[in-house]
């Protein structure tokens, strides 16, 4: 019995940090409507800065002072980020805000390694809370008791701040209607900045307080952000009470889940989240969001199929690409195969994002599932390569069918957070279920059969499948199903009013995208001869997002160009620098701020302007109003 009580208290102690970070995220979202993906990065920075300060200043005052100063320092960094970056993108579509803050996270990860080194850092114990308390023969660290008390205290302080101060009233008003608050003459810029500062302060404080419990490392940002997303999805984005209750719930589920499913404890949290999403899709304490009237796009250029000339040009490009093995060496061909595989992966996400308006932040899960499907089939079942290539992606299909069902119940930022959380769950299963997946060591020796083994043959195979995938997805875009999907994206209200079952259409699209991603993963397993948990990692999901964005999220097939350019650049970059995440993150931020239409989108806009200016003089539609209907 005592053991369970201790386990319960450990859970409560973990909840404190989680609550601090989640409440910060919720407060920022409430006012600015930005889901700050970089919140985990600020949490991590808080821990690193606090580590340095507490090592430098001795004594109890040095420790506690160091913790608070660290949180303040990071809050100032947050203010700078808000003023330099976020102020430029408050009016951008959600997707761009998510991506920009994600780019920031990537940059911080490399910067942290650059400043503090790659090794885990073990910090000081907290003065005054070094010992443990004996509880019927079980030890409870006294620092845990301190954290357990701290959670409700912070909750109370926040409540007072929002209920009893003028600033708090303004923040609550802005949460309900920011335009009205601006119309009343409140300086919105500084309100946003101060809210962001408070949110970042809470995240950094959450990180700093972890020092006595856990080693500081450069992967803690993603671990916490996934948990925080789960917390706000359960508790309801924008609700501080919700963040508290859900933080306790998730931490307890983690604490006891380890006892029930020692290997894959995260499953329990997933199950609870799934139940909450079905019963209350907006979270336990959240409010249902009014459906956003804004369309996801920046332009209203209608899509059209390729003209005959454009088709011929595309075929010509394909023929040139197919001729590559006659002039290039093995290394170039291997790179070419990898690019072709990433074209498949990118177009699958593009289909979901551009046509369906569903920005998945965990698309790598289905890529990885396809890769593992192939590896398991060929190593364990010993199936021939063709059978593996056909059946392996079905694991991606299965994963997309299960996760997609829940994900499409939500939209916008909730959808992004949920897909990311799902991808992390799949990743941890691959990582922890060592007996089947090989864990960190992966599955080795997945080589193609003789007919596809040579670099040129494998290149042709990848190129052929990539071309096929692009063509089939394009056909679907212009099919009635593609239009139903776009209709649901453009106006769910009108879609429902003309008999379209939007959720089922989106679910089907999710499954299609997941299966095609699984196909890419299947080829990738054969290209590399092995699969690892990283094949479903977050950085791969981000790669896919960047490829889509670089190509142009509003185009029909921009992802093809985006994938080719990005992958070529990426392979070159990795060979040139150790700080690829820093460069990549900076690249993402730059695209979002300066270049939101992407390569193909910019070209299209240019062509459209030219066509328009040459034809406007003769167009009767633009100059004369139509006669009345009578």
């Amino acid at each position, binding site marked *: 019995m005592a053991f369970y009580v201790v386990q319960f208290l450990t859970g409560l102690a973990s909840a404190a940090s989680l609550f601090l970070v989640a409440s910060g995220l919720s407060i920022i979202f409430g006012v600015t409507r930005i889901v700050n993906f970089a919140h985990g990065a600020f949490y991590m920075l808080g821990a690193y800065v606090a580590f340095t300060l507490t090592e430098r200043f001795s004594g109890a005052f040095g420790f506690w002072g160091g913790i608070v100063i660290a949180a303040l320092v990071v809050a100032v960094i947050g203010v700078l980020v808000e003023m330099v970056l976020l102020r430029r993108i408050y009016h951008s579509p959600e997707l761009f805000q998510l991506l920009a803050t994600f780019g920031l996270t990537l940059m911080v990860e490399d910067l942290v390694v650059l400043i503090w080194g790659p090794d885990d850092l073990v910090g000081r114990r907290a003065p005054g809370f070094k010992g443990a308390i004996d509880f019927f023969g079980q030890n409870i660290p006294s620092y845990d008791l301190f954290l357990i008390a701290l959670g409700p205290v912070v909750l109370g302080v926040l409540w007072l701040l929002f209920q009893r101060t003028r600033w708090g009233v303004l923040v609550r008003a802005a949460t309900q209607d920011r335009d009205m608050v601006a119309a009343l003459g409140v300086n919105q810029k500084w309100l946003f900045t101060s809210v962001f500062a408070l949110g970042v302060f809470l995240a950094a404080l959450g990180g700093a307080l972890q020092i006595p419990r856990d080693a500081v490392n450069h992967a803690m940002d993603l671990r916490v952000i996934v948990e925080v997303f789960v917390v706000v999805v359960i508790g309801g984005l924008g609700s501080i009470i919700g963040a508290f209750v859900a933080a306790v719930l998730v931490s307890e589920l983690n604490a006891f889940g380890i006892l029930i499913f020692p290997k894959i404890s995260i499953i329990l949290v997933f199950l609870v989240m799934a139940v909450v999403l079905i019963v209350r899709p907006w979270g336990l304490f959240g409010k249902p969001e009014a459906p956003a009237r804004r*369309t996801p796009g920046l332009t209203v*250029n*209608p899509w059209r199929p390729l003209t005959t000339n454009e088709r011929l040009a595309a075929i010509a490009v394909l023929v040139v690409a197919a001729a590559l093995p006659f002039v290039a060496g093995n290394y170039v061909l291997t790179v070419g195969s990898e690019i072709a595989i990433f074209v498949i992966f990118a177009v699958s996400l593009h289909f979901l994002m551009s046509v369906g308006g569903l920005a998945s932040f965990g698309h790598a899960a289905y890529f990885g599932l396809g890769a593992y499907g192939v590896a398991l089939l060929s190593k364990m079942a010993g199936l021939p390569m063709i059978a593996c290539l056909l059946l392996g992606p079905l694991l991606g299909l299965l994963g997309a069918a299960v996760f997609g069902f829940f994900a499409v119940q939500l939209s916008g930022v909730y959808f992004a957070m949920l897909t990311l959380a799902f991808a992390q769950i799949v990743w941890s299963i691959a990582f922890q279920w060592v007996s089947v997946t090989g864990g960190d060591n992966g599955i080795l020796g997945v080589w193609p059969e003789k007919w596809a083994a040579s670099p040129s043959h494998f290149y042709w195979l990848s190129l052929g499948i990539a071309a096929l995938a692009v063509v089939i997805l394009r056909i679907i875009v212009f099919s*009635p199903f593609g239009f139903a999907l776009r209709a649901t994206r453009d106006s769910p209200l009108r879609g*429902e*009013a*003309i008999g379209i079952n939007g959720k089922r259409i989106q679910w089907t699209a999710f499954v299609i995208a997941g299966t095609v991603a699984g196909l890419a993963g299947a080829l990738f397993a054969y290209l590399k001869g092995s699969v690892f948990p990283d094949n479903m990692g977050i950085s791969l999901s981000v790669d896919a997002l960047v490829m889509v964005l670089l190509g142009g999220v509003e185009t029909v097939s921009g992802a093809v160009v985006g994938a080719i350019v990005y992958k070529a650049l990426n392979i070159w970059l990795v060979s040139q620098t150790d700080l690829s995440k820093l460069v990549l993150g900076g690249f993402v931020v730059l695209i979002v701020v300066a270049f939101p239409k992407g390569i193909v989108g910019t070209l299209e806009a240019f062509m459209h302007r030219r066509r328009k200016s040459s034809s406007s003089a003769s167009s009767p539609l633009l100059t004369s109003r139509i006669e009345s*209907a009578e």
Partner: protein
Amino acid sequence: MSVVPTLLSVEGLTKSYGGVHAVRGVSFELRAGEILALIGPNGAGKSTCFDMLNGQNIPDSGRIRVLGAETTGKKPRVIWRMGVGRTFQIAATFPTMTVRENVQVALVSHGARLFNMWASTARQARDEAGRLLDLVGMGAYAERPCGELAYGDVKRLELAIALANQPKLLLMDEPTAGMAPRERVELMRLTARIAREQSIGVLFTEHDMDVVFEHADRILVLNRGTLIAEGSPEEVRGNAQVRAIYLGEGLLYDARHREGASA
């Protein structure tokens, strides 16, 4: 009158939020080809009533039947498939598609071909879409992106979309809100003409009394969730209670109406 079948029948529709009775025991009928206006001051329960009819809100009690078939508590998409078209207070269309494609999607949905992933949508029901667009006077705009249209034209397009399932009943929530005076008259004349020609029943809410008194065959007046008057425009105009609560005193509507009738 008894020859014309009852299209929509509403019995004892009730909805409350907490302690507030938004709609209390509303009952009425609508016949094919009839144009019925639902009016009342703000907060009278018009929108709640309307949302229950189109499936966006579920009544606490009461029954709604369209041509004898129960639609109470059914989803909007199901109600649409039972032959009920609708337009929104703020027109809802698909801005990234062309005008023709907007109508084609609705037609494809009506033909239950939404999960076809192979055919080209451009070839689906092309002529039928053209006919519907001609009907609402948008034929010349067929290839324009919907997002570039003036608001009055978006409203016409929305009407064409709403007609795509050959509805028996058309629900229009403040059809002329946000439009210029001339456009209002045109849109309502168009709607009335189509309704008479195809004997579609129309139920609409509206704040513009010129539109209501010119086009409605019958008027329902809602106040604080209950029907306080029902009848022809003349009867409603003469009703002292309605004047006191909503219309106000004065000869404005009389004068306008006589003008309209003699013209």
